[in-house]
C-alpha cells in the first residue's frame, strides 16, 4: 500500500501546518503570478501517526543488515558501525556548506586528506581522488583515465578492453561507456584467467584489462604477476575492480601486483551504508603514469594547511564527476571506520572475512553441498553449485534461495557468476559471529533435507513473507514502475 492510498480528502493536520502567528508563512507577494500554483500540490492527506505506522510497517517488510544475516556474495553486506554514523554527524561536519572556502573548512578537508592517504597506503597507489559518487562512477573514471593516457601519447589504435568472463557486468559496461569494445577472456577450470587465451587476445589494440582480485569466483587470481607482465608488454594498463578489496585489506596491495588504476567501493570494504542504491562512494587510486588525469577536486596538504586541487593545478584531469567532492557523508563514515580500525584492524578485516568464508565452505561441504572450485581455498566468499540438486530433485538455486527467506536469512547471490551453473555466491563478511554462521549452515542443511522430503514445498517458497514467489518474467516483460493516482 502506498502512502497516497491512506489519504482522505480535506483531512487537516493543523499542528503541522505553518502558522501565520509564528511568522512561518512567508510573504510571497513579490513572486510573479506565473510562478504561483493554481491548484494545491498533490500531497497525501495523512496524519502524523498514520505516516509513522506506514513507513515503519514498510521497513519491517524489508530484509536488511540491521535485521538479518545477509550473505549476498560480492556485495559485502557487513555491519555499519553506529559510531561511524555518530561522528559523521557531528554538527561541525554536518553543517558545513560544500562551497565553504578551504581556509574555513580545514576540518572536513583534514578528514578527506587523511582518508586519501590511508587509501593510498592500503592499495599501494600513488594518488587517490575521492570524487566519484559510486563504484560504477569510479570504474568510469578509471577507464576514462586509461583512455586519457593513451590519447595523450597519440596511441589511437587501442580499441579494446579485456574482461574475464567472471567479471562483474559493470566492467564491460564501463568499457563500452568509455568508447571501447569489451573482449571476453575465458577462465580455466581452477578459476584463474586462461593465460593462453589472454596471450592470444592481446595486441596493439589492447587498451587494458579490468580485473577483480580476488575474482568473483571467490578465489585469488594466482597468475596476477604474469597477467600484469603480458598486458604491460602489450602497452596496455591494468584496472583493479575494488569490489572484493575487503579480502586482501592489509595483506597484499593492488599497486604491488602491477595495477595502474583502482576504484574502491567504500560502501563495501569501508562499511558505509549501502542505502537503497545510494548514496555511494567510489574513490579512485592511480599509479605514477595516470597521476595527471586524476579526477578533481581532491585535497592537497603543504605541511601547514589543506587546499582543494582543481583543473587549475591539473589541466590534464579527466574532469569532475560530482558537483563538489563526492558524497561527503559517506566519505566521512568511511574515514571514521578506517580510523577506528587502524592498520591492525584492517588486517583483521581480511583475516576474519576469509576465515568466516572458509569455515562456512567447509561445513557446507560436510552437509552435502558441492563447491564450484573444491580444490581452491576460498577468499572472502565462495561458490557452491546446486546443479546436482537441480538435476536429481528438480530444485533450483532460486528455489533454495527463496526457501532461505522463510528461515529469516537474506539469500546469497544467485546465478552469478554466470559460468557456474545453479550457483550460490556466499559472502558472510567478517562482522558475523560463528553463532550466525552456524544458524545459516543448519538452515541450509535443513532445506537440503526438505528438498528430498518435499521438493514441491521448497519450489513454492517463500511461505511466510508478505509476498509469495514473484513473477520475475512478467515483471521484466511488462515493466510498470510508476504508480498513477486514480482520478
Amino acid at each position, binding site marked *: 500500500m502506498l502512502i497516497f492510498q491512506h489519504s482522505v480528502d480535506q483531512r487537516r493536520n493543523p499542528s503541522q501546518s505553518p502558522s501565520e502567528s509564528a511568522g512561518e508563512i512567508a510573504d510571497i507577494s513579490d513572486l510573479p503570478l506565473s510562478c504561483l500554483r493554481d491548484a494545491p500540490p498533490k500531497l497525501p492527506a495523512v496524519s502524523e501517526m498514520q505516516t509513522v505506522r506506514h513507513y515503519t510497517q514498510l521497513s519491517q517488510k524489508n530484509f536488511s543488515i540491521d535485521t538479518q544475516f545477509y550473505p549476498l556474495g560480492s556485495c559485502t553486506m557487513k555491519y555499519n558501525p553506529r559510531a561511524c554514523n555518530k561522528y559523521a554527524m557531528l554538527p561541525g561536519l554536518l553543517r558545513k556548506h560544500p562551497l565553504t572556502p578551504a581556509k574555513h573548512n580545514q576540518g572536513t578537508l583534514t578528514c578527506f586528506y587523511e582518508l586519501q592517504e590511508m587509501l593510498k597506503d592500503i592499495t599501494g597507489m600513488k594518488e587517490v581522488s575521492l570524487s566519484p559518487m559510486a563504484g560504477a562512477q569510479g570504474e568510469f573514471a578509471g577507464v576514462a583515465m586509461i583512455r586519457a593516457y593513451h590519447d595523450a601519447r597519440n596511441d589511437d589504435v587501442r580499441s579494446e578492453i579485456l574482461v574475464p568472463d567472471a567479471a562483474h557486468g559493470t566492467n564491460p559496461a564501463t568499457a563500452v561507456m568509455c568508447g571501447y569494445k569489451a573482449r571476453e577472456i575465458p577462465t580455466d577450470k581452477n578459476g584463474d584467467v586462461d593465460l593462453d587465451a589472454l596471450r592470444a587476445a592481446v595486441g596493439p589494440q589492447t587498451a587494458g584489462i579490468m580485473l577483480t582480485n580476488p575474482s568473483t569466483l571467490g578465489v585469488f587470481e594466482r597468475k596476477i604477476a604474469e597477467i600484469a607482465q603480458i598486458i604491460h608488454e602489450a602497452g596496455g594498463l591494468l584496472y583493479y575492480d575494488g569490489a572484493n578489496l575487503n579480502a586482501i585489506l592489509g595483506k597484499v596491495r593492488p599497486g604491488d601486483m602491477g595495477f595502474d588504476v583502482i576504484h574502491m567501493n567504500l560502501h563495501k570494504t569501508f562499511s558505509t551504508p549501502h542505502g537503497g542504491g545510494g548514496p555511494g562512494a567510489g574513490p579512485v587510486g592511480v599509479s605514477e603514469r595516470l597521476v595527471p588525469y586524476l579526477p578533481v577536486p581532491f585535497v592537497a596538504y603543504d605541511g601547514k594547511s589543506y587546499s582543494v586541487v582543481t583543473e587549475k593545478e591539473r589541466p590534464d584531469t579527466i574532469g569532475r564527476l560530482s558537483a563538489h567532492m563526492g558524497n561527503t557523508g559517506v566519505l566521512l563514515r568511511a574515514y571514521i571506520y578506517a580510523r577506528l580500525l587502524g592498520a591492525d584492524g584492517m588486517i583483521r578485516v581480511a583475516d576474519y572475512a576469509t576465515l568466516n568464508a572458509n569455515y562456512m565452505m567447509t561445513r557446507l561441504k560436510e552437509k552435502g553441498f558441492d563447491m564450484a572450485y573444491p580444490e581452491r581455498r576460498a577468499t572472502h566468499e565462495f561458490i557452491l553449485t546446486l546443479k546436482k540438486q537441480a538435476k536429481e530433485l528438480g530444485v533450483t538455486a532460486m528455489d533454495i534461495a527463496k526457501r532461505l527467506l522463510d528461515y529469516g536469512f537474506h539469500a546469497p547471490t544467485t546465478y552469478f557468476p*554466470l559460468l557456474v*551453473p545453479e550457483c550460490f555466491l556466499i559472502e558472510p563478511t567478517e562482522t558475523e559471529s560463528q553463532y550466525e554462521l552456524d544458524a545459516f549452515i543448519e538452515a541450509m542443511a535443513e532445506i537440503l533435507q526438505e528438498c528430498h522430503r518435499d521438493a514441491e514445498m521448497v519450489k513454492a517458497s517463500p511461505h511466510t513473507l508478505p509476498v509469495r514467489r514473484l513473477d520475475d518474467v512478467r515483471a521484466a516483460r511488462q515493466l510498470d514502475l510508476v504508480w498513477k493516482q486514480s482520478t
Partner: protein
Amino acid sequence: MSDIPTQIKYTKSHEWVETLEDGNVRIGITDHAQDLLGDMVFVELPEVGDEISAGEECAVVESVKAASDVYSPLSGEVTAVNETVAEAPETVNQSPYENGWLFELKPSVNTEFDDLLDADTYNKLAEEDSH
C-alpha cells in the same frame, strides 16, 4: 539432450546454423542455451543489411537470469531478422529451432562452414556442460 536436430550445424557458443534452399543460412540459439538462460524477456536483433563477421556479437538474448551475447557463427550480410522473437521473446524458449530463430545471413566466406560442429560433437559438449 539427444533430440537435437541432426541436419543443422552448431557452435561452441551454443548457436545453430541451418542452410536454407537459397544458400542463405538461418541462425538461432540451441535448446541447451535457452534452457540454461531460462525465461527470455528481451531479444535484440541485428538490422537487415548489417555486415557481420564470424565470432562477432550481433544479437543479445536477455532472460531473468542474464543478458547474453549471441555470436555470429559465420560472416556475411544480414538478409532477414525474426520480428516475432523481438515482440514475443518467449518464442525462443518454446521453439528454439523453428519459430524462435533469430536472423538470416548471406554467407560470404565458405570455408567458415568447416569450423562448425555437427550434432554429435555439440551434443557431447552440451552434456559435459551440464555435468
